């Protein structure tokens, strides 16, 4: 286990160190201490190493992640794991706005609550939230899965494309073109697999599924009134 003190070394030195590691490195486990809410901690990693951020992280923590596993022992600021490509990001506390924004792949686990716009424009990432999400979550979500074990705020899945949303609690309101959809056995299996992968003990049968009514995102002259 290697330890990096952010207050002593500074953000740039730490990120450069982690970003320069090769895939075959033997230094696979790293802890970043004193994160103090600084931005862009452990961003742009490309190899399968394990990072623990020991405290609260600021904006864009673990952004653009590929392959790495990043665990935040605290809360995460705006845009945690934004544009992640692969790997695993786990937030032990709560996450601020736009968690997992535009991310293409990998798994983001938020053990607490996520704020507004969680999974905005997600493009293939899987997001599992142990608590609730704020308003406009899943806005323009294109691909991937978002599992919400608590409640969802206003306008869930507004202008959604083909991402699949699963909610166990209540939904304050659905956004434009987002509807409740049938939960098939395939969906149930996928959901159970995601919960297991996320390490969250919750019965898949307690969830409802939401997705696109597909009336908005393909232009159809007969539905022009809806645009």
């Amino acid at each position, binding site marked *: 286990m290697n330890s990096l003190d952010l207050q002593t070394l500074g953000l740039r030195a730490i990120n450069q160190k982690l970003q320069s590691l090769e895939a075959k490195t033997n230094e696979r486990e790293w802890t970043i201490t004193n994160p103090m*809410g600084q931005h862009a901690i452990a961003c742009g990693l490309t190899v399968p190493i394990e990072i623990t951020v020991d405290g609260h992280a600021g904006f864009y923590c673990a952004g653009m992640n590929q392959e790495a596993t990043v665990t935040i022992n605290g809360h995460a600021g705006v845009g945690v794991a934004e544009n992640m490509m692969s790997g695993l990001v786990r937030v032990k506390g*709560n996450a601020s706005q736009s968690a997992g924004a535009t991310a293409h792949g990998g798994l983001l686990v938020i053990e607490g609550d996520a*704020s507004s716009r969680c999974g905005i424009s997600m493009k293939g990432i899987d997001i599992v939230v142990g608590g609730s999400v704020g308003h406009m979550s899943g806005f323009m979500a294109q691909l991937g899965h978002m599992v919400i074990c608590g409640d969802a705020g206003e306008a869930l899945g507004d202008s959604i494309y083909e991402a699949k949303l699963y909610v166990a609690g209540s939904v304050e309101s659905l956004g434009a073109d987002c509807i409740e959809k049938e939960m098939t056995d395939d969906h149930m299996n996928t959901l159970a697999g995601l919960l297991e992968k996320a390490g969250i003990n919750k019965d898949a049968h307690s969830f409802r599924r939401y997705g696109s009514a597909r009336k908005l995102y393909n232009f159809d002259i007969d539905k022009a009134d809806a645009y």
Partner: protein
Amino acid sequence: MIGFIDQIDQLLSFAMCGIAGLYLKNPDLFSSLGKLFKPMLIEMTSRGPDSAGIAIYRNPVAAGNTKFSLAHDSTEYDWASLAKALDAELKGSSSITRIDTHALLISDGDESHVKHWLSNYDATVRLVGSGNSVEIYKETGLPEDVYARFNLEGAAGQHMIGHTRMATESAVTSAGSHPFATGADLCLVHNGSLSNHNRLREELKRKGVSFGSENDSEVAAAYLTWKLRQGIPLKQALEDALKDLDGFFTFCIGTSDGFAVVRDPIACKHAVMAETDDWVAMATEFRAIATLPGADTARIWEPKPATVYAWGNESVNAQMEAPIQSSVEAPSAGATH
């Protein structure tokens, strides 16, 4: 072209300005207020490097007196003559203390009378705040330098709010800096940008409200001033603001013994709050709070959109429910929201 630039301003505003507020619950920390608040403000420098402002509540004046925060472009301004002329006019007694480009005037004259006299005395003198205990200091320059100019590191008190500005809607001037006074002991700092400020400014001017800058945040402050003048409680005034102000905002409003926080209905601008047994803090970003003792184990949350939060002693809660009082209540611990 102006429309295009306006749009760019709107886009840039997503990254602009930082605000911070600190309210101490533990009296043992009162003597360290300025020291604790300094890193909070400085951490917000990257969000607002072109000017900074601070409201500190301390040294309440005796009953019948009012404390006025005044500012001038020159550090050499003849404040003594101003105080002398005021006393001659009102046949009263006042004292004045220069602090860099600012001065604190304490007068036993009627508050509105003194304000009227000041506006006629010298147009180059700016009234930046007034009340029983509030002092407002704001200048262009790096937050660290502004903080040092007004000797705030050693300041004692129970609460402070501050703002670091990256100008998007109006010029980089001291007059366009935050906080903006909104009434007796009240002031406002704003993170965001308002889109209907021009029309609202014209409407408020017609209702007799005066303006010192072209700043959009000053319009929000003027709007609150106008509401409070009518005897509308602060909480109601803020809820009305949610309906009448169009744009992005997180406001922090300093009151005589606490502060209130409100975000726009879609929570466009960042805001985070934290609380321990010793203090309550709010800031645009957590990194501004991270330096406070016990921040790592504090209760931390984001204020909900379109929800008014208030922290302070009992009189703050009274202020939230009843018309603004000018008296300062005896401190008593307590926090509500």
